[in-house]
């Protein structure tokens, strides 16, 4: 395409990066926050103070579901764990509308949480591949295509960047486009293995959806394929005879012993209340990167172990391990922070790349006294995304504290607040121009983030000045992080202000 191989790679890198850069920025930012999704949820549910140990929680769950959901053929249960404080339940109810799924969240006392209804950190997690307001199917395809662009951009980025080590010693900060290039290089290279891993494994997480045509071509029956890959559990049908189920907590303790204490990812109860009721425990891959993904199936009536399966297919093991690597489910606190910091690097890599594209052309265009529409669009979108998304996150957290606790459709309203803020930031450049958006936006971000812990002080009883340790460490650190984000935004604002003053002086 270009005369030299490297030049055509530079072209490819620039354009694959720019076209989907903003989407990638949003995906990276929310995905990075999703590494702490359970902690964010804890922060957003300050009324949940007591955590029930799992064997007690499953008892509460059984009582709750026996009273509410005996008609459902299936219950899905997630118990509290090291990071999660609540039990989450799903069952089917024909009268529920939609696809007929009902969800309930139980606190440490086994009561359903109805006040301060929130999606918590889970919204950020879902948004990073499902987006919002659009069909999940198309959103996933869209994010997948963007990830493919990202993969090409990373590979071409490595090709065009030969002097990886040399550049560290010639780092130049605050010197225009050259510095933006250095910043882009620094954030890319420092966490390069992470960027490659996260993009590739991200594609792998939804691979069976993206490559469904390959499966259809290869196997006439798609189910035959899945049956060949994963061990199929025994199929047990309800007989229609009612029977009393054993306390789940007993079976849970037996299963825990059988799993050598490895946590359970989730529990499934089929045909509850029937003579053929069974309860399945799925092993969680949270202890190690490699896991056997064992499934234990017990009769819920007799407590007899009916089946114990493990994943044996090595290709499927690899796929699951790649997914675990992406989601960092196995990571302990230290490694989780490394994941988080690498994610921040990735977010900055995308942001600096986008700014670099703009700055490089800015000078040239100014000399020629031209301002094409595409250039303006990029500058506006840059400001609207790079400052708009953090602000949206801040408002999402703020709305959690400020909206009345019994507001109808509260969880959804928090999400509307998130998008409304982002939308305002996208409109802002049209009204005020991009450079003012940067300055104002940084200040608005600083104020928003700073105010989060103090709004908590006014609105709720569990806050910065009343925390009890060690129970409230997680909340404290999140408050601290919001203050730190506010500070960072304020430093950015100050820098932008000074630069503007310098520019004005030169003009005078």
């Amino acid at each position, binding site marked *: 395409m270009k005369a030299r191989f490297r030049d*055509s790679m530079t072209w490819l890198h620039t354009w694959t990066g720019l076209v989907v850069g903003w989407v990638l920025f949003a995906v990276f930012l929310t995905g990075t926050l999703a590494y702490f999704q359970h902690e964010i949820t804890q922060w957003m549910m300050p009324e949940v103070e007591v955590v029930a140990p799992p064997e007690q929680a499953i008892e509460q769950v059984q009582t709750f579901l026996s009273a509410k959901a005996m008609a459902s053929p299936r219950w899905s249960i997630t118990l509290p764990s090291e990071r999660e404080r609540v039990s989450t339940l799903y069952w089917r109810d024909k009268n529920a509308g939609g696809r007929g799924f009902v969800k309930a969240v139980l606190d440490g006392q086994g009561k359903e949480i109805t006040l301060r209804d929130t999606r918590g950190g889970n919204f950020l997690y879902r948004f990073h591949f499902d987006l919002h307001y659009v069909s999940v199917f198309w959103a996933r395809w869209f994010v997948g295509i963007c990830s493919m662009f990202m993969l090409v951009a990373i*590979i071409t980025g490595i090709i065009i960047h030969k002097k990886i080590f040399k550049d560290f010693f010639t780092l130049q900060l605050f010197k225009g486009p050259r510095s933006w290039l250095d910043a882009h290089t620094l954030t890319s290279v420092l966490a390069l293995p992470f960027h490659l891993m996260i993009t590739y494994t991200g594609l792998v997480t939804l691979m069976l959806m993206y490559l469904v045509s390959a499966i259809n071509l290869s196997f006439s029956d798609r189910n035959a394929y899945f049956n060949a890959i994963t061990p199929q559990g025994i199929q047990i049908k309800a007989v229609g005879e009612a029977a009393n189920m054993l306390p789940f907590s007993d079976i849970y303790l037996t299963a825990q012993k059988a799993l050598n204490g490895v946590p359970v990812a989730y529990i499934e109860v089929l045909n509850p209340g029937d003579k053929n009721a069974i309860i399945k425990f799925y092993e969680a891959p949270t202890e190690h990167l490699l896991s056997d993904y064992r499934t234990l199936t017990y009769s819920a009536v007799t407590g007899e172990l009916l089946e114990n399966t493990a994943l044996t297919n090595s290709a*499927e093991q690899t796929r699951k391990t790649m997914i675990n690597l992406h989601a960092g489910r196995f990571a302990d606190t230290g490694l989780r922070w490394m994941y988080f910091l690498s994610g921040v690097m990735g977010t900055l890599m995308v942001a600096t790349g986008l700014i670099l594209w703009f700055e490089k052309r800015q000078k040239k265009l100014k000399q020629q006294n031209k301002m094409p529409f595409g250039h303006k669009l990029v500058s506006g979108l840059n400001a609207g995304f790079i400052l708009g998304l953090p602000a949206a996150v801040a408002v999402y957290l703020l709305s959690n504290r400020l909206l009345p606790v019994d507001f109808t459709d509260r969880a959804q309203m928090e999400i509307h607040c998130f998008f409304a803020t982002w939308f305002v930031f996208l409109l802002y450049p049209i009204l005020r121009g991009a450079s003012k958006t940067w300055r104002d936006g940084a200040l608005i971000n600083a104020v928003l983030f700073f105010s989060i812990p103090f709004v908590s002080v006014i609105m709720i009883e569990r806050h910065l000045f009343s925390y009890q340790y060690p129970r409230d460490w997680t909340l404290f650190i999140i408050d601290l992080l919001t203050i730190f984000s506010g500070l960072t935004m304020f430093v950015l604002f100050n820098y932008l202000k000074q630069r503007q003053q310098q520019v004005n002086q030169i003009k005078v």
Partner: protein
Amino acid sequence: MRKLKSLFQNPKINVLYRVILAVCGGAAFTLVATVFLPELLLYNFGYDKASSLLWMMLLSFLIYSLIIIWVFSSHKLFRVSAQLLGLTAILYISFNQLQAVNQARLEQINNQAAQVKK
């Protein structure tokens, strides 16, 4: 032919064609390569098709990226198009043939097993 050549020298059309070739041609090639190799491995060595298909799917994103890079880096657009699309066609036909042969073999084995049972 000369007219066509000058058309492709127009940078906009050239880029547009490359994008379509890389995205669609690359996807078609990747898809066919992903399903072809498992059939070949089954035919020659009796490897489990489901597993090798899964391995190929895991690799497919890498294959796709390399094809895209190849299409964008080449100087000879006509040659690349012919090679990519030609290879895709050959792989697709071979895949179909192999699948039919493998299917027939499987049926034969199943029939024999059924007769032994009787």
